[in-house]
């Protein structure tokens, strides 16, 4: 996969950096005991990722160094450095789903999207992520598609989901 600049990828899910908005998000959490995690969640929700420009603001608000802020941000799988694709797909990689064929399903999904786990497609349409257990293990294998969980996912069921998404996108364009 070739790396491109974020602004060359038109379908990424991101809001423009806005220091005033960022400050508004951070401020209430700065008064909360141990609020840095919540602030990071808040920033990612607003901007689609945790922008580098927010480290200074976080460091000030929580009385930490920039390095400490980055240390916390980078420890957790959820916090992104860059925007995600327009659609985010997570495929569970844990044992229960393995027992029901998640390895094969993962290969299928990677082929279909043309990207590996942890990557975003060149056009910014799709981000594919590994997830370790969605707590839906009685109906494995499981994926999430734009935050909605689907159980007992076969290759065929995944293809239908993709077709439905493509259909909705077409409808949107004609609207």
């Amino acid at each position, binding site marked *: 996969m070739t790396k491109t600049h974020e602004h060359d990828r038109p379908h990424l899910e991101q809001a423009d950096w806005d220091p005033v908005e960022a400050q508004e998000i951070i401020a209430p959490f700065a008064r909360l*005991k*141990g*609020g*840095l*995690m*919540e602030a*990071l*969640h808040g920033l990612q929700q607003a901007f689609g990722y945790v922008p580098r420009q927010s480290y200074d603001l976080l460091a000030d608000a*929580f009385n930490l160094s920039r390095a400490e802020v980055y*240390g*916390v941000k980078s*420890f*957790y*799988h*959820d*916090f992104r450095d860059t925007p995600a694709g327009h659609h985010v797909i997570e495929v569970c990689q*844990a*044992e*229960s*789903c*393995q*027992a*029901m064929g998640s390895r094969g399903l993962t290969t299928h999904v990677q082929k279909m999207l043309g990207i590996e786990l942890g990557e975003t497609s060149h056009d910014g349409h799709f981000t594919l992520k590994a*997830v*370790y*257990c*969605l*707590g*839906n*293990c*009685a*109906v*494995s294998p*499981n994926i999430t598609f734009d*935050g*909605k*969980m*689907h*159980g*007992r996912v076969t290759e065929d069921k995944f293809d239908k989901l993709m077709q439905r998404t493509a259909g909705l996108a077409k409808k949107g364009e004609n609207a």
Partner: protein
Amino acid sequence: MSDLMTLYVPLDSTALAMGADEVVLAIMTEAAARHLDVEVIRNGSWGMSWLEPLVEVVTDKGRMAYGNVTPEEVPGLFDAGFLTGGEHALGLGLTAEIEYLKSQDRLTFARCGLIEALSLEDYRAHGGFKGLEKALKMLPQAIVDQVTASGLRGRGGAAFPTGIKWNTVLGAEADQKYICCNADEGDSGTFADRILMEGDPYCLIEGMIIAGLAVGATEGYIYLRSEYPLCRDILHEALIEARDAGWLGADIRGSGKAFDIEVRMGAGSYVCGEETAMLNSLEGKRGMVRAKPPLPALEGLFGQPTVVNNVLSLASVPIIMDQGADFYKNYGMGRSRGTIAFQLAGNIARGGLVEKAFGLPLREMIDGYGGGTDSGRPIKAVQVGGPLGAYLAEGDLDLPLDYEAFSAAGAVLGHGGIVVFDDTVDMAAQAKFAFDFCVEESCGKCTPCRIGSVRGAELIEKIQAGQAVDDNLALVKDLCDVMDSGSLCAMGGMTPIPVLSAMDKWPADFRKDGVEK
């Protein structure tokens, strides 16, 4: 308009993942077209996950169940008169008579599936807050003693006696103490915490309030994994309702006692299920484990005495306070008292939640409740107790489900997750995954776990490629010994368990081509 008909369709994550919302929409649409007056109540899941979405109708005989309902089946169900319990291919008869459910010992999960998840009124009508009402009239030491006498042990997996932990916190002198609920249910094959939080959230809240009264803590936190967004929404709503009704806040139901709860979200880190890593994460830091001592009971959250308990440990407390210690203790075997929520997962025909007294043989759980593999092929391996649990072979399945019996067999009962694999599984690949998972999730604080996991994954790769197999197998064993003895916490300390059990029991899987390269 006809009489009002009542249906139950779960709002639980499994039901939603299998299309419950679409089914509700189809039911409402069909009812409107037929000029029928129906109301749909959103309950939690009964835990019969393989039947989701499980639709129930209230009839004069009781609640009748229809399993695996899809939107396409809805018109046919109406045609069959399912609103009055009519016969249909999806019909399962009376919910309460379904053998899977009927034969369980539902203590902690007594209300899951039965009640409207977010209705305080329904909760109270089914015994809710009775335990708390008794606790409000008791001295802290008496509450702690009752929990100790019940024999309850930590349901998160470590199985430490809950009452003893509480007693330490009660005895600690401090201006501020905390109750932290560990809702970071990260083990693959486990979902009991989630089912409880989604299906009976007030039960957890009640357990936490009782814990607060017992040890003199006024603040509680629920550390919830980010993979459970629906739990977050349900807990938020339940906390607001409970606060409005005076069960939380500065003066609980006029008792003069204070307790309140906040939900905090994790951010995708398995190791944050380890109690000290969780406390660091709650403090807004990297989720690194802490060396013990000091124990969290003495120096926990923000350096204060803290009770850290799993969701199910806390949710078991209300019934212990309401029915008494002896009632709870009369279930179980040996030193494993009460009930535990087993979760059947992986390649299993009837996956779901089974709350049972300790002592049932594993085989009975897998065959009797689970109905064997989903693929119909023979069982090859069963992993119990999450990703750090041992892989058990067919010959091990007569083990009784009991903490000590599992320990003696070098296995782990843990949080009660049971993941079944059929004979297509490659155990070398599973051993490799155990190391890979440790690479992915190690907090990095101690060397055996941080470096050992990477080297272990490399060694298994070499073995899979047939390179110096004997030497590399010996090296893996040696590495596992170092990780076992030298790691700070269970992440590095227990990763060897699945690896070594796979190597010991399925040696042929590690010698694919039988050729030394």
